[in-house]
């Protein structure tokens, strides 16, 4: 009895194999190749923590800002530059007349030199060839930096503000 069942099962397996082979036999079927194409467009993008606050500090000393992040959120390598929108920190407090000149007083840590560099209204390169995030990673490439400010002695008390602008351009484009 067992031999009969075994034989039947073997026959069934052989039949299934034959049917499967027939289904996949393409010798008599027509074939066509389909080429699929997709273009991925370039995007340039950056993101920076804002604002940065040096806090309430005494005049006549040098202070480092808290660390903050700048991220390359696009899909191309970039060069990163920075400049200020003004030559001085301007007071927002009423009746305050002093300003804090940035020349000689205001610096940013640069990835190009590894040290603090003087900020000005001209564009200063602070990162050469910042990578994009690796493909598929959920997080962009992020660089952490900080600023340094010397508040001149006898600067009037009050709140002083300035704007820093970070500029991204695609790294070293060659046609």
């Amino acid at each position: 009895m067992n031999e009969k069942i075994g034989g039947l099962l073997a026959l069934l397996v052989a039949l299934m194999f034959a049917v499967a082979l027939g289904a996949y036999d393409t010798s008599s079927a027509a074939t066509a190749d389909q080429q699929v194409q997709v273009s991925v467009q370039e995007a340039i993008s950056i993101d920076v923590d804002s604002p940065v606050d040096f806090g309430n500090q005494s005049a006549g000393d040098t202070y480092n800002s808290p660390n903050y992040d700048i991220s390359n959120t696009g899909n191309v390598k970039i060069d990163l530059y920075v400049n200020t929108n003004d030559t001085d920190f301007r007071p927002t407090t009423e009746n305050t007349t002093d300003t804090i000149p940035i020349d000689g007083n205001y610096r940013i840590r640069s990835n190009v030199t590894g040290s603090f560099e003087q900020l000005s209204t001209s564009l200063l390169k602070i990162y050469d060839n910042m990578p994009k995030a690796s493909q598929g990673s959920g997080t962009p490439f992020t660089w952490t930096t900080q600023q340094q400010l010397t508040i001149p002695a006898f600067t009037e008390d009050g709140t002083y503000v300035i704007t820093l602008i970070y500029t991204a351009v695609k790294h070293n484009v060659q046609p």
Partner: protein
Amino acid sequence: MKFKVLVATLIFIFLLGSFYPIIATGLWASPAEFRYDLKPGGTVTGEVTVKNIGNETVNVTIEKKRLLMDSIHLEYSDKGIANWITINGNTTFTLKPGESRKVTFTVKAPSKINYSDAVGALVIRGLPVVENVTGGTQITHGVELVVPIRVGLPGPIIESLELINHKAPLILLSFIPGEFVYELRNNGTVQANMTGSVEIKGLTRHNIPIEGVVYPEDNYTLVERWTPGWTDLGLYKVDTTIKYGRFQAVKTITTSDNVIVIPVWLIILIIIGVVVWILRRRGVEPPIRIRIERK
């Protein structure tokens, strides 16, 4: 008890960090650049999408510029190709977080120009709408994206890159970077695509690759840095080769310099030797004596 207080403090710090709002200013633009081949007098239209990817509202300004760019500088000019570009529609607008806008522009090449390659750009700037400034010394961060518009025009192809000046350090110390500066000018009619290297040959060998693009009528400052390590010592020959061309880098500029590398460990050894020599000469006994005896 102390352990529980420590755990509670850590949880409090963690929660404080979780609830502290992280404010970021961010812009996104696509495509990242435009390339056009135009005939004299020809016109083309392009479109760029700008998106606010930060979490605060930004005021966006778009300007058209000519780009002057080298390995250290990025400057804008209102001359040349800047006058060929017209931005259609508003050049200032506000974008809320997640909001985007399409901006179109037109490039019209002049019928008569004296160079064939030009690079302009859309400079897209986003500044946060500042509402409150509280205490201290505060810095607002804005972002700017440069989207180059590269235009090629038919005309005579003249490849001419001139080395106006170059500087190399005479002496370098270990771990202190030295700068090799090359001032170049493109006197041709087409962009000069540069490759090459700075070969530093002495007791050890180093190779610094060179790459960059100089556009017609532009000056370009190429800066290459080298920091000697522990093993670098003595006289080094620095041979610089800059190959350039519009399509293939077939023309060459070469320079040769000599640099003396003085390692820091040698300076320290000399100082220690001089101090020991002075002390011995004055008859000062060392405070510690070590005597090794054979058993």
